[in-house]
């Protein structure tokens, strides 16, 4: 466990915890981008350069922006601030804590997770491309289909129906 990992882990956990705890929704999303960037840095630290950069591009560049846009578009100026947490927040936190306890227990007691770090694998972008185009070509095509469907679906759902009836 290196110092780099420790710093990144602290940043990531702090960012995500702030994202789930802060009052202001926009602050939450901004904190979340810190968390996403931290995860991306951890990918880079794990020698998964391509995935790490994709993570930044997709999460920081697209998902976070999408989320702030959604927050802006659904903003209702209310005089009184509504409570941040749901009515059953206690139950939710207990469930989450329990899940973490179980997972941590499983991880710590597992024998498979105690092996050492293997030598750095030489993974170039070209290899990833080759794999995508040969071994994983069917998933890739399905993914393309899924993304197209999601694109059309998102547009259709979010479209304002009132304009059609005009």
């Amino acid at each position, binding site marked *: 466990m290196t110092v780099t990992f420790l710093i990144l882990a602290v940043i990531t956990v702090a960012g995500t915890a702030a994202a789930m705890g802060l009052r202001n929704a*926009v*602050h939450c999303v*901004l904190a979340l*981008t810190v968390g996403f960037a931290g995860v991306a840095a951890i990918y880079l630290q794990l020698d998964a*350069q*391509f995935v790490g*950069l*994709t993570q*930044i*591009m997709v999460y*920081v*560049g*697209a998902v*976070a*922006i999408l989320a*702030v*846009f959604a927050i*802006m578009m659904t903003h209702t100026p209310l005089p009184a601030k509504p409570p941040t947490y749901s009515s059953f927040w206690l139950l939710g936190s207990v469930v989450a804590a329990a899940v973490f306890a179980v997972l941590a227990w499983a991880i710590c007691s597992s024998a498979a997770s105690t092996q050492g770090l293997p030598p750095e694998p030489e993974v*170039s*972008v*070209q290899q990833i491309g080759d794999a995508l185009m040969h071994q994983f070509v069917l998933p890739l095509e399905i993914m393309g289909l899924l993304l197209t469907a999601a694109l059309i679906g998102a547009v259709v759902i979010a479209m304002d129906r009132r304009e059609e009836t005009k």
Partner: protein
Amino acid sequence: MTQALDQIFVLTKQWLLGFVPASAQPICSAILSVVPVLIGFPLLFAITTWLERKGLGRLQNRYGPNRTGPYGLFQPIADAIKSLTKEDIVPLTADHTVHFLAPVLLAAASFLGYAVLPIGRNMVLVNMNAGVLYFFAVGSVVELAVFMAGWSSRSKYSLLGAMRAIAQMISYEVPLVLASIVAIMQAGSLSTVAIVDKQAGYTGIWPHWFVFTPWGVVGFALFMIAATAESNRSPFDLPEGESEIIAGYYIEYSGFKFALFFLGEYLGMFATSGMAITLFLGGWSAPFSFLTWIPSYVWFFAKLLALIAGFIWIRGTLPRLRMDQLMSLAWEFILPMALLNMLDAGIWHFMPAGVLRWLVCTAIVAVPCVLLGQGLKRNKKFQVRTYQFAK
């Protein structure tokens, strides 16, 4: 001698590194590489502000700045002093932390992109395997900084400007990446160094730059259009349209923070221009084989200045687009052309070299370009506007 001059910066760095102990060498090497970039490009920014104001003036039959120093050369220094000594005003209801972080994040993100730009032979900060992807990933952080600036200012204008800027940047990021894919396809690598190396050869005196192919020239044109929009420059400067929303997302900033926004904007422009040079204009390689004795970094900066001059020329010429024109240009013209261009690059790759390849590949991009242009022209949106009362 030529070799030494070409590698002078690399050799100097190695010579300097010889003075430090081996354990400190990695960090010293990083500092020695980063600091020139951190100094050089802001210096270029200062020069560019002067060039731009002089150039725009001449394009519009004006003098431009000519009061501070000979030919107004000290104008950037005067501007710097002014912006540094100005009062730093933060709106009362602004979100102070985010308001402070936005310009810092913007400037930092704008600097990050330079890590993968090969400025000269052996002169790249990080030879990353996924360099181009890194460049675009870092570029997408700028959008977040813009949003932070617009949202935290608590002003209608800045929020509208930020929304416009983000919508525009997201829309044009797609064509930007798609236009650059042709170069990546041909080079077979995402590494910027490999892409430049691929273009460094010569046939006779002519270089193997990607821009000298049918798909290359289309890709370059599309890339530059998208880069103009991505860096919020005229004619795509709707996010800061003075007549509508005054200055867009940085309206509530003053003094040094404003200067940081300005810096970030120009650094973004330089970075995308540098990427265009890397992808299509052969990076640091000389335009003719008999000119290779001139150091490689000179060629890089010459090309960079040429592209900046192009940006200034465009800015001095074209009026600002409307929002719907901006979006329809992105989605109805640039995006289909970029996709078609990818097909063209593929065909170029698999056809045997010769005149036929040239003809086929030119036809594949030229004919749809003309047809699409005609179709869009017939579309009301691109036609000359007529005014009822202004006649």
